[in-house]
């Protein structure tokens, strides 16, 4: 953080005009916050709110893509959804992939950030090095991982063969496909989250660590008693955004499918996530109303999970 130098006082600014600077300062204090947060809400009202409300409205109808009128269903889409085995399958897949990706990701991200926070040579190189996976365009990610996890000719299976473990059907086997997809997700996002944590770690004043070192605390003790608690807001941030992002995973399962462009999530839906099911319902089955209902149910699930994780993290990082 910069050592701030306050601007040199200009005599006019503080010349006490009776009552005026006081009222101005109070108005400034009162109004500024609203002015500062306004841009977000203004843009959101135009480009975010309308799609939100539209989706909610459409979910009450049996709206087919491209239709001008639709039958009003009320909660019909939602009740259909709750008894839909494909939805529950997708939810199960989503939770599984989420756990396989977010949990290791957060842990490794914090660990990597701690490593990066040391007095390394070539600091910039290392820091940017962990972000390299995020550079890849999605097309490249699909091609690369399709190639790595190919059932017949993939590199991973060749390696497993070499080592004697034998080939795994990454596409057909439910758990294997989840692991492969979680690997794609973790590969792409761990460095990203590590840098977020790193930025926060660097805001921690080093005197605290130095004082603890003088008191004889070892690196692990310092980490758990000083660094982690001070990182709490950022860890909460990483956990919540990983929860929200993890439950919405869409791109990786779509790219992973052996059938190019398929939204089915595998031959028996073994890796179809809820968002992929949403996308399939909207654009392949052309059932916009039903898809909108999926979106809102997913929203509910995410909110519950995010709130839950928030409280868990707050307690753990005490």
């Amino acid at each position, binding site marked *: 953080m910069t050592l701030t130098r306050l601007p040199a006082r200009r005599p006019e600014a503080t010349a006490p005009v009776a009552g005026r600077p006081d009222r101005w300062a109070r108005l400034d204090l009162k109004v500024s916050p609203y002015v500062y947060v306004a841009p977000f809400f203004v843009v959101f009202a135009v480009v975010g709110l309308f799609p939100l409300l539209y989706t909610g409205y459409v979910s009450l109808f049996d709206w087919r*893509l*491209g239709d001008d009128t639709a039958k009003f269903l009320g909660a019909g889409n939602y009740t259909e959804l709750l008894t839909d085995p*494909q939805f529950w399958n997708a939810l199960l897949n989503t939770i599984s992939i989420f756990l396989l990706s977010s949990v290791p990701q957060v842990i490794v991200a914090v660990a990597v950030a701690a490593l990066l926070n040391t007095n390394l040579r070539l600091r910039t190189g290392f820091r940017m090095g962990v972000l390299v996976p995020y550079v890849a365009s999605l097309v490249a990610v699909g*091609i690369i991982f*399709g*190639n790595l996890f*190919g*059932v*017949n*000719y993939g590199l991973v299976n060749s390696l497993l063969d070499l080592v004697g473990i034998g080939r795994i*059907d990454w*596409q*057909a086997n439910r758990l294997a496909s989840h692991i492969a997809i979680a690997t794609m997700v973790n590969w792409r996002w761990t460095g990203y989250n590590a840098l977020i944590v790193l930025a926060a770690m660097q805001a921690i004043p080093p005197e605290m660590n130095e004082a603890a070192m003088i008191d004889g605390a070892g690196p692990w003790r310092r980490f758990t008693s000083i660094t982690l608690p001070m990182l709490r807001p950022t860890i909460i941030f990483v956990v919540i955004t990983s929860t929200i992002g993890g439950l919405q995973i869409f791109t990786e399962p779509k790219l992973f499918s*052996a*059938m*190019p*462009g*398929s*939204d*089915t999530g*595998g*031959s*028996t*839906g073994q890796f179809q996530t809820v968002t992929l099911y949403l996308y*399939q319902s909207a*654009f*392949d*089955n*052309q*059932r*916009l109303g039903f898809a909108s209902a999926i979106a809102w149910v997913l929203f509910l699930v995410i909110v519950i999970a995010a709130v839950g994780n928030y409280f868990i993290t707050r307690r753990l990082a005490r």
Partner: protein
Amino acid sequence: MRQRLLATAIATALLAGLVTACGAGDAADSKIHLTIATFGEFGYEDLLKQYQTEHPNIVVTQHKVGQAAPHHKELFTKLAAGSGLDDIEAIEEGYRAQVMAKSDKFNDLSKIGPADAGPDRWLPWKYEAGKSKDGKLIGYGTDIGPLAMCYRTDMLQAAGLPSDPDGVKALFASWQTYFDAGKTYVQKTGKPWFDTSTQIFNAMHNQHDVGYFDQSDNLVVASNPDIKKDWDAVTQAIADKESAKLVSFGNEWQAGFKTSAFATTVCPAWMLGSIEQNSGPDNKGKWAVSSAFPDGGGNWGGSYLTVPLQSQHPKEAAELAAWLTAPQQQIKAFVAKGPFPSQVQALQSPELQNTTNAYFADPKTGALYAELAKKLTKAQYKGPADGQIQDDVFAPALQAVEQGKSATDGWQQAVAGAQKAAK
């Protein structure tokens, strides 16, 4: 301050970008601006230039997308949004059923198109397939994908099977003989006979009079005996290890050509290029195309040009679409990029008849496919969810069977999935 300079620079660049972006809009001239949206390689680049030279009051802009899937995503999104579609929208065979379900959003080309773009221009089944249920002509046919059977002469020879053009005619006469030949091949060599069960199943399916839906749009998956028969035959072939279990157009399928993973594959006219690219120069002359296709002919793929109601210049758009799909122009597109024409005159033209492909053992591929194109007599009726049932229900179900699911379980999955898709 540096940050301010950076901000100003970006703002200026943004402004400049907006100005240049705004340049390509409707100019205030008296010309008619038409837009045409295509995907893949239709071969229209030079043709559009020619059209604009011949019609100086018309300006045509082409919007190309590489693959069909994003193109159709965009099409359906803009259909739903009510604006943004081009004057001419290309649609692909696989999405035809979905587009026909929205036929009320498209112009009837038989009403607004030129008089000479009549049914006799095209192969009858192609023309019929461009019509909606209520008789509106939604699309002018562009290209087709007549099915032939491609086979590796060397691999058939190694198994003691006949590999000359006449010899294989007996092997490929019917699906029964095809699968029997496959059994022999597997016994002799232990290697798969065909690349994927999905395309075999689709080819068999499209030959029937009635497909997944009857003419009243009722789902007949469970009741249509032909579908179950095909299912049993194909799953039996899978059980006999005839399938290489690859997925069409996936990366492993492409690799399978190079590693000689299978001996036969159904090959429509447009696939010859990818067979050559995938197999590589080492396999030159080993692939052959047989004009014998089990149980008659078939078609896989092909496209149509439609004029959505959103178009501001429907009549001019229909004229352009009719011109592009006239035999003369389709020949030029064929020579340029390879889409196989669907117009009768084009099929008889010398350019097509004399087309050869030196990569294949029997080079006269143009004439061969022209013959095969005529074998199809009628187009099967495709109900609204046909594309989904083919690609999102039966293809995954067959894949599941290839991955180990029992044929009965796979059938149940398919039937349940079809019922869901048809909802």
